[in-house]
């Protein structure tokens, strides 16, 4: 039995319309993608959907009170709220630099959360 699944690629803002052919839970064919990223996304989205999570954490003694952060790599989609939860009570001291590790191995994903903004100390 083969199945067809329609997806919108989120690999980049192009948003390619993908058509994935699945047979016996295996991906046979990906159509509609304009680059390799589309194929990778389709395969992932049908087996192990992941997202990069972006949020913010509190900064102490900074010129602004929050610093933006992201997961360094994409994490399983069902862990998004776990990641957010672990960031809730984090407070980091200024100065903060882009790339500074804010939380290691967040939500047991073996992915770090890093700062995405420089914040100078007050």
């Amino acid at each position: 039995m083969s199945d067809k699944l329609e997806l919108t690629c989120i690999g980049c803002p192009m948003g390619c319309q993908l058509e994935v052919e699945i047979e016996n839970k295996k991906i046979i064919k990906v159509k509609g993608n304009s680059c390799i990223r589309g194929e990778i996304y389709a395969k992932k989205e049908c087996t192990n959907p992941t997202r990069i999570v972006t949020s913010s954490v509190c900064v102490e003694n900074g010129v602004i009170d929050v610093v933006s952060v992201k997961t360094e790599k994409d994490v399983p989609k069902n862990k998004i709220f776990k990641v957010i939860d672990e960031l809730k009570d984090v407070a980091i001291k200024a100065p903060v630099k882009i790339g500074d590790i804010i939380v290691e191995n967040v939500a047991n994903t073996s992915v770090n959360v890093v700062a995405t903004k420089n914040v100078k100390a007050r």
Partner: protein
Amino acid sequence: MLNYDIVIIGGGPAGLAAAIKAKEEGIDNILILERDSVLGGILNQCIHNGFGLHTFKEELTGPEYAQRFIDKVIDMEIPYKLNTMVININSDKTIIAVNEEEGLLEINAKAIVLAMGCRERPRGAINIPGDRGAGIFTAGTAQKFVNIDGLMPGREVVVLGSGDIGLIMARRMTLEGAKVKAVVELMPYSSGLKRNIVQCLDDFNIPLKFSHTVINIKGKYRVEGVTIAKVDKNRKPIKGTEEYIKCDTLLLSVGLIPENELSRNAGIMLSNITGGPIVNESLQTNVEGVFACGNVLHVHDLVDFVTIESYNAGKSAARYIKGQRFSNEGSIKIEAKDGVRYTVPKSINIDNVEKMVQLRFRVSNVYKNSHVSVYFDDIKEIYKKKKILTPGEMETVIITNEMLKKYMDTRKITVRIE
């Protein structure tokens, strides 16, 4: 009186890229004027990822994307003034600006790059009836509260408009613990990017109601709820379809307007479709030596395209300083027709084209399995198949120098959807 070769109004992604390019082209006497306390513009509050895939071939967040350009500006020692508000530009290219430290500044520029960006349409622009309690914000204002100030604007949210900022904020509010009850869109399609609908709404099961609008806001001191209704083909609410949604916050994502008060004072002609200056192939406005790029010219969905456009504007400004002139004499007019709302630029003078011109445009409706056609007078030169065209996504066709030479006597280029 201060004297500069090129003054760039605005230190967001457009202004930064224009400055970098102008400097690379050998112009040293540049000044960036920025009204905020930091460079980077709106990118500072766009903490989500998805920026830079075209420019850097990697996926960055807004602040990271901005920082790369800020670092370069600092590295190249391009002068800039922060907390500096430009209050007037004259058609003779004198600029009046003001800041706390220096007071009133009179600046004489040989060339100006307009890079002021855009602003959000507020409640008043769409005339929603009802109470005027607290809790009604534009999506971008809410974004600043959450991402820069660390404050939550509300707990139960309805978003009106499915523009990108509205979609992004629906997710952001959800992640921060708010309940987003619905995103309501007047049109039968979204003006936001597909990926944002997938990633911001579908991922969190937030309902998106097409052909619906908010017809009343309740709550004298604080928003208590909104009434939404389905609309007909003419976008008029249909009786009997009203639905009350309890909420304490209404976010508006109902369009962006290029911020051109300064341009108007300078005698710059604006397009009544884009709200931005009418420019030629060199991104020069009708005032010689004044160029425009980024969201002040026309609203973009991708910062990567802003960067490319602004490099071009910076390059033109540098060439202007070196003595080149970008006259419109003998220019080919570009007409937007049959589903094409506008084009940037509006004219091409072949003498000013180095290799090619990127013609950017938006369509007025959703078109599936259609073609973008470009006619040189009556001859169809480009016929590009498109699976989908939507008003939310800016399109590009490239007019090459070869094409322009092939049709030397062309008087009009027409872009249409077929």
